């Protein structure tokens, strides 16, 4: 199939006066890892529910692999795996039994299902806990079981709603590796909603940023970071002691546009990469640079630019 996996036109969802999603145009191609970003309440989850046919759009259209999720939800759900924001399992069943039930609901034959479940439990490193009741699982284990559950049906597209929420850093790293594996080795497209920006930046080929139900920015990471005003370089220098002499000298450097000190950390913005000059200048003025690190304009800054005003309002 050549068309996009997911395509929406003017998709809107209103709850009374609240416009949860407004005029959303979204396009997801085969093989993409799409990061769907935005603060809480910006309409990410609602959009996902509409893609899956779990709620009906107020206006606009959704097409998932050519099917309308409201009219033909089973055709969509046969090929789309969905990990909800807070995934739940039957606590009185074991991890294995929960997965076998999902397999049965997907019409997978018992014998095939047992092999597949065992393999997936290995993949998500739950082999040892497979025969424990899910009621005794930790949050991270549930999340991993959720991923196995999603992969069980052998999906073409996986929709993950804020999967890093509540995971510890190691868990997040593991999850991201798994997402990369899914995308590269098994050619599964991924639609990932999140507010953990650093992570999304690492795995996503394209991101869209939502704010108050609207898509405010969309593109590849490079496109988004390149197009920022005041581009160029930003360097942070940690020094043993901040003196006025150092600051004055730094400001005097060519191509430096801004220089501010916060405690022992000095931020320097410049139009060129002047890290070596900065270190020299600090040393020459009687201070020791303990660390010099360059900060690219990250997604986070872009993100914050859109959401700071909103938080200030709140």
């Amino acid at each position, binding site marked *: 199939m050549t068309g996009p996996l997911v395509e929406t036109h003017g998709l809107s969802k209103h709850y009374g006066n609240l416009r949860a999603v407004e005029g959303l145009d979204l396009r997801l191609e085969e093989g993409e890892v799409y990061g769907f970003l935005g603060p809480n309440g910006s309409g990410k*989850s609602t959009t996902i*529910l509409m893609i*899956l046919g*779990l*709620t*009906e759009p107020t206006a606009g259209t959704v097409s998932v692999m050519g099917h309308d999720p409201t009219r033909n*939800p*089973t*055709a969509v*759900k*046969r090929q*789309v*795996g*969905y990990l*909800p*924001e*807070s*995934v*739940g*399992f*039957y*606590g009185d069943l074991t991890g294995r039994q929960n997965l076998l*039930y*999902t397999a*049965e*609901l*997907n*019409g997978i034959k018992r014998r095939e299902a047992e092999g597949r479940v065992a393999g997936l439990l290995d993949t998500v490193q739950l082999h040892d806990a497979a025969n424990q009741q899910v009621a005794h699982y930790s949050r991270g284990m549930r999340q991993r079981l*959720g991923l196995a*559950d999603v992969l069980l*049906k052998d999906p073409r597209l996986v929709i993950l*709603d804020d999967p890093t929420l509540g995971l510890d850093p190691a868990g997040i790293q593991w999850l991201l590796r798994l997402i990369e594996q899914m995308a590269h080795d098994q050619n599964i497209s991924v639609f990932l909603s999140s507010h953990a920006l650093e992570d999304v930046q690492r795995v996503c080929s394209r991101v869209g940023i939502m704010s108050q139900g609207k898509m405010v920015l969309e593109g590849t990471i490079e496109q988004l970071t390149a197009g920022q005003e005041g581009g160029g370089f930003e360097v942070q220098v940690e020094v043993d002691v901040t003196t006025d002499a150092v600051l004055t000298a730094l400001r005097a450097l060519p191509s430096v546009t801004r220089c501010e000190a916060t405690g022992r950390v000095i931020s320097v913005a410049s139009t060129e990469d002047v890290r070596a000059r900065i270190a020299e200048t600090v040393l020459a003025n009687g201070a020791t640079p303990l660390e010099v690190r360059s900060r690219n304009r990250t997604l986070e800054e872009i993100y914050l630019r859109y959401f700071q005003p909103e938080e200030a309002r709140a």
Partner: protein
Amino acid sequence: MTAIFWKELGDHLGRRRFLLTLFLIVVGVLWGLFILAREVDGSSVTSNEFLFLRTFTSSSGVLPPVLFYIGFFGPLIGIALGFDAINSERAQGTLSRLLAQPIHRDDVFNGKFLAGLVTLTIVLVAMILAIVGLAMFVMGYSPRSEEVVRLFGFGVLSVVYLAFWLALAMTCSIFFRNAVTSALVSLGLWLLSTFLIALLVAPALADLIVPAIETAQQKVDHANWQLWLSRISPSQLFNEAAQTLLNPDVRFTGVLGLERAAQFDRLEATPISASQSLQLVWPHITVVFSLAASLIAVSYTKFMREEIRS
């Protein structure tokens, strides 16, 4: 849907809650046995009487008949099987995962309803068979074919009646997110239906409509109003229908007008056949059935278009 059905059936039978159901069965059987013992002792028994049926319909001074027991406590089984059917899935977060699988939404409802229906059929059949079996053991002879037919009819009636309560409880489980609220509402309706309507609501309303009860006609009117008003309650319908099905001497349901009562007086009191009894209670069964069906329809419309948020 079969996957959901089997899982739910296993859940029903394996859950601790099922012990309550078993307890109700055991008490019911003992209840029947006690009444049976009194009947046999009473030595008023002649061989042409329907002794097996009387196990269900006679009361023994202290204890009301077994059919009353089923009419009163049976709904609890239906409620126990259904009050948290949908809302517990929602609370556990399994509902959105379940509905993300390639199944239709009505499969979830249907699978759960069928599993509940099968469970309560098993329970009722077990209870009725146990009572009949023990009665055979005590009396030493087997039921006549007409008794078997009537008992079968009674079994079907009871299943329909409990299915109504199952549908009611499941409807509550869709409308109330909280399992406790759902259980309380179900139990409130249970009290209303089994108890309050017949004892308070219907008499009070009948008093309002027919304030003075002096002439014979007024008495009949009052009784008529009271009966028809109490027929709002499915429990009343069940009790009437069960009495009629199990007792061949019941030749009519409802209040007789003066003229018809006089006619009846002139007739000889002969038992009627099973098919005639069935004809008498057909409207009752139909009403309970359609009440259950409309509850299911209401649940459907709510559940099918609802937003499923995790």
